[in-house]
């Protein structure tokens, strides 16, 4: 009887075995890209692709984790007059929903070396438990600070910077080591610093460089603002480290987001040839990956490009 019911159900086109129109749904993806900005949807409360916006401040450098109400996001809130910069936190069910928690300040400058500036948070799960944040401090001598938290809201700072002369950190943990990707004042490229238990040591050469010889490359002039994500592969003890980053051409108003990856931290490959993974005035990416998709938050622009916002794109 059940068989007959199954056959009858299928014949009517009803039930759990109904046809599927989206031919790419459920397919595996590494999450590299390309990404597309969220399309505007009148049925949601959000103003897609905008995720965070403040009419009186710049919201930049998002760092995102899955959890809480859905998305947990730390970001820089800054103003130019007066000059302020602090790290704020928000939660939302998705990039198409309004925040359910915050935004609220969770980290402000307090140490002498920070010179009143904290920005560019990179938050990730701490192998020792809880969360760890690496952030940029100081305006005159940018350095990287470290703070830990059990809830993402209250942070305990390490008193001294963990890496001097670096900006825009992004951290992953790979095989017992801590890899921090940064940019450096007056140095070209994205650099890796590795902590094997005795503090961060910069590699001798950058891992990603701009491509000045490629006239059509989206990263012809600069690469910066790395975001790294370490994802275990199916091969035992092999981790794929994703790296999204901002690239610019010789047009200073144009920025886009590119992608590279490595298995060992030494050999890096770009994906997409000369093309970015997200184009047209996008920078400072952060990504969370799902089995068959990905979500990227990045810096966008509002008010004619005079103000920075946090926008969203999906794979």
């Amino acid at each position: 009887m059940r068989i007959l019911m199954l056959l009858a159900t299928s014949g009517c086109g009803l039930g759990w075995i109904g046809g599927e129109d989206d031919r790419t749904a459920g397919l595996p993806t590494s999450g590299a890209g390309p990404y597309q900005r969220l399309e505007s949807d009148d049925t949601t409360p959000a103003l897609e692709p905008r995720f965070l916006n403040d009419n009186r401040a710049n919201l930049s450098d998002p760092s995102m984790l899955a959890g809480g109400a859905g998305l947990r996001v730390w970001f820089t809130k800054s103003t130019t007059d007066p000059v302020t910069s602090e790290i704020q936190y928000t939660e939302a069910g998705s990039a198409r929903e309004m925040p359910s928690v915050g935004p609220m300040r969770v980290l402000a400058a307090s140490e002498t070396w920070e010179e009143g500036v904290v920005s560019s948070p990179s938050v990730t799960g701490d192998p020792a438990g809880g969360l760890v944040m690496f952030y940029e401090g100081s305006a005159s001598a940018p350095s990287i600070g470290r703070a830990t938290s059990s809830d993402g809201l209250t942070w305990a700072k390490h008193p001294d910077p963990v890496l001097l002369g670096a900006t825009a950190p992004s951290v992953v943990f790979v095989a017992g080591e801590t890899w921090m990707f940064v940019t450096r004042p007056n140095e070209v490229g994205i650099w890796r610093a590795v902590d094997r238990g005795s503090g961060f040591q910069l590699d001798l050469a950058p891992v990603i460089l701009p491509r000045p010889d490629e006239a059509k490359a989206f990263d012809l002039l600069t690469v910066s603002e790395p975001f790294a994500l370490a994802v275990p592969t199916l091969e035992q003890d092999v981790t794929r480290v994703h790296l999204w980053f901002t690239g610019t051409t010789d047009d200073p108003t144009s920025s886009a987001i590119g992608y590279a990856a490595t298995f060992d931290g030494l050999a890096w490959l770009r994906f997409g040839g000369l093309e970015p993974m997200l184009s047209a005035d996008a920078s400072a990416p952060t990504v969370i990956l799902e089995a068959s998709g990905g979500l990227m938050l990045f810096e966008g622009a509002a008010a004619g490009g005079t103000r920075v916002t946090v926008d969203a794109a999906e794979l």
Partner: protein
Amino acid sequence: MKAAALLLLVAAAPASANPADVIGLGARAIAMGGAQVATVDDSTAGYYNPARLASFDDIHIDVGYQMAVPRVGANGELFPIDRSQGLAAGIAVPGRVLGKRLAIGATVFVPDQQVTRTRTLPAERPRFLTYDNRPQRLLMAATAGFEILPGLQIGGGVAYMASTNGTVELQGLVGFPNAELSDLDLSIDVDVQTIRYPHAGIAWQASPKLSFGASYRGGFRLVIDQTVKVRGDLGTPDIVVVENGRLDLRSVSQDLFQPMQITVGGAYQVTPCLLVALDIAYQRWSVYDNPTARIEIELDVGQFNDLVMIPPPRQLEIPDLRDIVVPRLGVEWQGAPGPRKWIARGGYVFEAAVAPEQKGESNFIDNHKHTLSLGGGIEWRGIGDVIQKPFSLDGFVSFTYLQPRDHHKLSPVDPVGDYTASGHAIAAGVMTRWRF
């Protein structure tokens, strides 16, 4: 140009592969795991072994309905794969010529959603080889069997498939920069060509309890060859920017593939009630070609030629499939003869994965597959004066388990990345079998 592309897509939409190879054909056969080459006793002999047709005493007319629902995917996500369902039917008409048994038969499987389907996917798009297009096509075979010696029959026939080759041609003015000014005459020239591939078999009743059989099923590949041609001027009706411009776009793809198959098997009547059958099938998958469309583009837009860069054709990975041997085991238990006879069946099939681990850009997924099937039926000796010969109603269910399989990518920037492919498929169906 959008219209041309749309026409190409529409014109490239027909065709697909063999549902009987994936699911089986007929309730008795599927319930017995497809171990039929030496024991098939209904019109599906046209598919399993046409030689067995010559062993029939009665006219057989069989009509049934069967379906299969694949639930397969990767990394815990299901792929959007269509179910396969349709009408399975056949007829076998025995007779005698020069005192020898002779029978003719026809076997069809008609999907009730689309007669055939072809999807040409990008090379890197993950797809299950077995469940992609193969179960989504019409199967039609005409066969005959002949008894050459008492207990020894041979048979053969032809199965049909259709291939599509065509050209869409647009001539006139291509509006530039305003496409709405286009004035194009459309002509379409499409040939639906027949593809034939052979079936053949031999059957030997070695003793009242023991029979043997062997069958050959030809392989085929269905190639879709489509061309779009645009000829004409580029500009406005008043100002022609390019005179006699030309765009030729040709897409050639292998959309369907059926491996050549050779099957040998035997069946033994262990007791008057219990029959055991075993088939071993060789399937030649190694000649499978990359199904991704090969696109050739030629463009002549006069002085603008230097501004247009047509990428060179992509080098496609060789799929490197391997030939496999498929064992099929079936049992059938029949109740005591009487006005109504109950029948129970079971089967097991193991199909090794034909595709290697997918380490590069292509993602032709296949897994080791274990299929368990169960079935049953009831046979009436006759119904009144109208149907005096046995009439039966059979049903089956089968469950195919895809052994999880990891695919490790060699490149750290592979857009798909590592994945574990797994899943299962459920099939069910019924068939009525009539004899006259």
